[in-house]
């Protein structure tokens, strides 16, 4: 299964809407185990994506993901800016020639995050949502339950990357904020492609 330009745009638009709506949820999660700004950061990115789309309607998938990437890179800052930015930039490069299977697209993004963050699954980061979603898509089992499970799996992890890692054992018992924002991304995807 692939996602085409119109739906992909709806996907991103729904994502940025959720980011704006859930700004304080994300800030609260980040206050518990980080520095309290993940919502503010992503909200800034969300507005930048909207501005970018308003200024120049993306004409193809590569442009859409690239515009998303640039907005994130230039406006989010923090850890999540380069991570989401790299994910979407790599996705943009990957679809330049030809659209990809959704599973491969998300795996490309996941790999970008792993490379930029020098990280992998089990470290209580957004990767713990991206990677399981990518698997689920491969196995045609992508649904709300998968997203919820992936997100909730971060709760009992001990963080080893990102700010939450400084808390060591005490990082347990809290959802990872980046995992939550990624969950919004995939909930938006689910809305668009139908659960």
């Amino acid at each position, binding site marked *: 299964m692939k996602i085409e330009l119109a739906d992909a745009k709806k996907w991103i638009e729904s994502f940025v809407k959720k980011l704006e709506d859930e700004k304080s949820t994300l*800030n609260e999660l980040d*206050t518990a185990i*980080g*520095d*309290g*700004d993940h*919502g*503010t*950061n992503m909200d*800034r990115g969300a507005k930048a994506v909207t501005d970018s789309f308003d200024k120049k309607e993306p004409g193809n998938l590569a442009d859409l993901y690239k515009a998303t990437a640039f907005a994130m*890179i*230039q*406006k*989010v*800052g*923090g*850890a*999540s*800016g*380069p*991570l989401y*930015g790299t994910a979407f930039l790599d996705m943009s490069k990957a679809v330049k020639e030809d659209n990809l299977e959704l599973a491969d697209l998300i795996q490309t993004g996941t790999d970008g995050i792993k490379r*930029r*963050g020098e990280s992998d699954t089990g470290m209580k980061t957004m990767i713990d949502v991206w990677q399981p979603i990518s698997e689920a898509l491969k196995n045609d089992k992508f649904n709300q339950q998968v997203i919820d499970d992936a997100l909730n799996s971060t709760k009992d992890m001990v963080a*080893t*990357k*990102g*700010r939450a*890692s*400084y*808390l*060591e054992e*005490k990082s347990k018992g809290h959802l990872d904020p980046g995992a939550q924002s990624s969950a919004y991304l995939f909930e938006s995807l689910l809305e668009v492609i139908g659960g």
Partner: protein
Amino acid sequence: MKKIINNVEDIVPEMISGLVKTNSDLVRQIEGTTAVVRNDEKFKNNQQVGVVSGGGSGHEPLHAGYVGDGMLSAAVAGEVFTSPTPDQIYEAIKAVDQGQGVLLIVKNYSGDVMNFDMAKEMAEADDIKIKTIVVDDDISVKNSEFTQGKRGVAGTALVEKIVGGAARSGMSLDDLAKLGQSVIDNTKTIGIALHAATVPAVGHPGFELEKDQIEYGIGIHNERGYAVEKIQPSKKLAHELIEKILEEFKDQTGQFAILVNGMGGTPLMEQYIFANDVLKELDDKKIDVEFSKVGNLVTSLDMQGLSLTIMKANDEFIKYLKEPVTTIAW
């Protein structure tokens, strides 16, 4: 939350604008960014390796307050507690490169490391020589190959002072990076908080402590520490932090430098009392302190608390620490 601000989104640009307006002989703002760069006459004619640092805002006077002759060439301010973006860092690099290359001083946070990395990639595409050193002086966090590692905190100001001085004296990029790394390897910090900082966008303190509690090992972004305990007299606090830090230095002979750093909401009075206790105890231990400094150098918004940094130094470090510089805040 009571703060003297306008809109939360405008905090950083307004702050930078205030800083530049009140110090236009020293610094100017790079258009379209919240980066500041040296603006003195000497800089315009100077041929030295550029030294650029930056990071999230909320740690003032770090980094913009250390831009000037003998310290940083430019500083890039991100949003509050949020790494600046690569495009801003890239602009700062371009503004200071004089053909000798540019050293980036980065505090060890995933965001900072990644954004400076992306900026480095952009600048290298322009054939600018770049080296990066990553400050990780906060020993309250365990290090391991598999984790983010230790945080960069107050020691950063000392790294910027030494590296900035060496850059002014004409040291090459490679040597500067080596010098900076050796300063970092010999610089250890622990902080304590009496009251957490309030991030403006969040609106309440990052954590709560009881009326008589302090937290040991906190970071400069409200990162929780290793223990919450009843507050002790300054002497005992000094003892606790000194003991923890000295465990890291096997060799306690030779020269040392110390920094007592206020977190933003703690008066100088308390910092000096604490410094007095630190120096007394180090003197009792026959540790030779050749340089010491006290003040709000690397803050955490309105956090109440302080940190102690001890550096195992040598003649070169001490020389650059003591040299006069022309900056807003050193």
